[in-house]
């Protein structure tokens, strides 16, 4: 039998259904891969018992002749931003060390209800703040990829969903959850040669997902191909009365609706994304994407999104502002870490706990957020940023008069080495230059692998869609996937 860990979500689901193998065999195979990959540091907590219980339930249901659930037999990885009942959840921070949620996030509950099992909790940038997974309190995640020049420089798996991207590309799980605030699903997917989609804001409930920037945070799946993303997203999404921003809409049958034909569709190429200093290889990949979609029947149109260059600085006001408010809850009183210096009063306890419990990048963002919201600066920074956000959303609305989806690179470079950008916050922030605008506008967007650069590292193409048009995004992704023929995978060294 072929190695079961080479199979994706759809193949596992279908194989379990027809009895080609048991769900338990699948779970056991991935559990072994997880246990052998400690070097990658992708998992913070391993939960083989959860995966085995779900697998046994799937096998029992099949033996009893019952109809199997949509994800029966599929073990997944869960980003540690999702609260999981009885399983420690830290958002890769020290301040939440020892926190064991007494409740389950809606997104994870939806996945368990669909029959999925959990292999473990995945490492990430602390509180999802970072683009390289270097801000985790529990150490860097190493990308399974290495440059083909023979050098062994450890590479960033992207962030903030770096444990998810590393685990999927290293075959430690067939799919994983991610969250995307400014690109945290798409950029790590691009860095590791996998697919990932951020749905329209409001599709996935935020309830039980540790908050970073609530007007931007959105969960989504990361998997090896477009179909697998569609399957997982169907299970994750759905109306939730417990989240006031949850959209009261039925979940479309995205997998059933998959089509590789772009006939009659117009693909917009935003000219402002052609930034100065863009590596030639990214430019060439973008052109290939254009050619592939044209080959699939699409008409290509150039569009303009004039406020693109302001998206990143606006994001770095809005996201830290919301973070400074959301992270005020970590006070050393109700849960998590408490640091009480000898003789300290309440205010000193707050300050000591937060100084000790938050990492450098988290503190930096809380401070920026506090500054831009402070008396006298609020209008100049926060209100101005929210007005620019309106203009960015308006740019997209105008573009939709000319096209159905937009095509752009996912990130301005391939994966960089760990440590290469961590000294310069702005250089790190610039990683999200192509992903942040659609986040600010709440639009669905996905990254699919397009090819390799000269060093043998994956590069991703990004498709951005109209609000609620995940189907259009997935279909364009599928058209690219079929033409890109991306089969490269990291060779195991771990």
């Amino acid at each position, binding site marked *: 039998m072929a190695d079961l860990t080479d199979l994706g979500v759809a193949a596992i689901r279908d194989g379990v259904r027809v009895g080609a193998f048991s769900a338990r065999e699948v779970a056991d195979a991935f559990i072994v891969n997880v246990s052998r990959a400690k070097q990658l540091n992708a998992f913070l907590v391993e939960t083989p018992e959860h995966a085995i219980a779900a697998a046994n339930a799937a096998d029992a249901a099949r033996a009893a002749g019952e109809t199997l659930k949509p994800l029966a037999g599929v073990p997944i990885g869960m980003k540690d931003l999702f609260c999981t009942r009885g399983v420690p959840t830290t958002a890769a921070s020290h301040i939440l060390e*020892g*926190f*064991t949620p*007494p*409740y389950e996030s809606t997104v994870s509950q939806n996945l368990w209800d669909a029959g999925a099992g959990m292999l473990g909790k995945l490492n990430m940038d602390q509180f999802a703040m970072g683009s390289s997974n270097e801000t985790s309190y529990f150490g860097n995640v190493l990308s399974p990829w290495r440059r083909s020049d023979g050098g062994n420089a450890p590479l960033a798996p992207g962030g903030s969903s770096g444990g998810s991207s590393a685990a999927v590309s290293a075959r430690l799980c067939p799919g994983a959850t991610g969250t995307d605030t400014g690109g945290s699903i798409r950029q790590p997917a691009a860095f590791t040669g996998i697919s990932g989609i951020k749905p*329209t*804001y*409001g599709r996935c409930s935020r309830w039980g997902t540790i908050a970073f920037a609530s*007007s931007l945070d959105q969960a989504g799946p990361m998997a090896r191909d477009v179909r697998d993303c569609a399957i997982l997203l169907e299970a994750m999404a759905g109306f939730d*009365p*417990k989240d*006031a*921003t949850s*959209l*009261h809409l039925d979940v479309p049958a995205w997998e059933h609706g998959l089509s590789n034909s772009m006939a009659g569709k117009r693909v917009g190429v935003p000219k402002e994304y052609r930034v100065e200093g863009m590596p030639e290889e990214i430019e060439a990949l973008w052109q290939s994407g254009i050619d592939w979609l044209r080959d699939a029947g699409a008409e290509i149109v150039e569009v303009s999104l004039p*406020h693109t260059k*302001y998206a990143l*600085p*606006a994001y*770095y*006001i809005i996201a830290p502002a919301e973070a400074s408010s959301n992270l*005020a809850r970590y*006070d050393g*009183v*109700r*849960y*998590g870490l408490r640091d*009480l210096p000898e003789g*300290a009063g*309440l*205010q*000193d*306890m707050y*300050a*000591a706990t*937060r*100084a000790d419990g938050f990492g450098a990048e988290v503190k*930096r963002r*809380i*401070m*920026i957020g*506090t*500054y831009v919201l*402070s008396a006298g600066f609020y209008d*100049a*920074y926060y209100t*101005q*940023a*929210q*007005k*620019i*956000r*309106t*203009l960015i*959303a308006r740019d997209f609305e105008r573009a939709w008069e000319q096209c159905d989806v937009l095509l752009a690179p996912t990130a301005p470079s391939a994966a960089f080495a760990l440590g290469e950008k961590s000294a310069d*916050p702005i250089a790190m922030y610039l990683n999200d230059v192509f992903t942040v605008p659609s986040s*600010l*506008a*709440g639009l669905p967007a996905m990254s699919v692998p397009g090819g390799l650069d000269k060093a043998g590292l994956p590069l991703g193409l990004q498709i951005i869609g109209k*609000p609620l048009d995940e189907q259009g995004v997935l279909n364009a992704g599928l058209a690219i996937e079929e033409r890109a023929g991306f089969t490269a995978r990291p060779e195991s060294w771990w």
Partner: protein
Amino acid sequence: MSVDTNTVKRIAGLARIAISDEDAARLAPELDNILGWIEQLGEVDTAGVEPTAAVVPNATRLRDDVINADPLTGGGIRDLLMANAPEAEHGFFTVPKVIE
């Protein structure tokens, strides 16, 4: 505008994050650099533009006015709520003395 060490200390105070003099001195140019980069937003003419309130139009819902509609977010779960408290006593969260 430039961010100096005193500003950093004031902001850290507002954010309830203890900070040493060295850290404040190290952070000042860093934050100054980031805020300087953000300042380019000032060049955009936003006269007459409404700030974004909600990114996807969505009506506010009301739920039925019933007690404990969701057992997990309703009442009567004190022990569950306090299970993760670093220090809890007799069903209360404890804090150091607040009044002098």
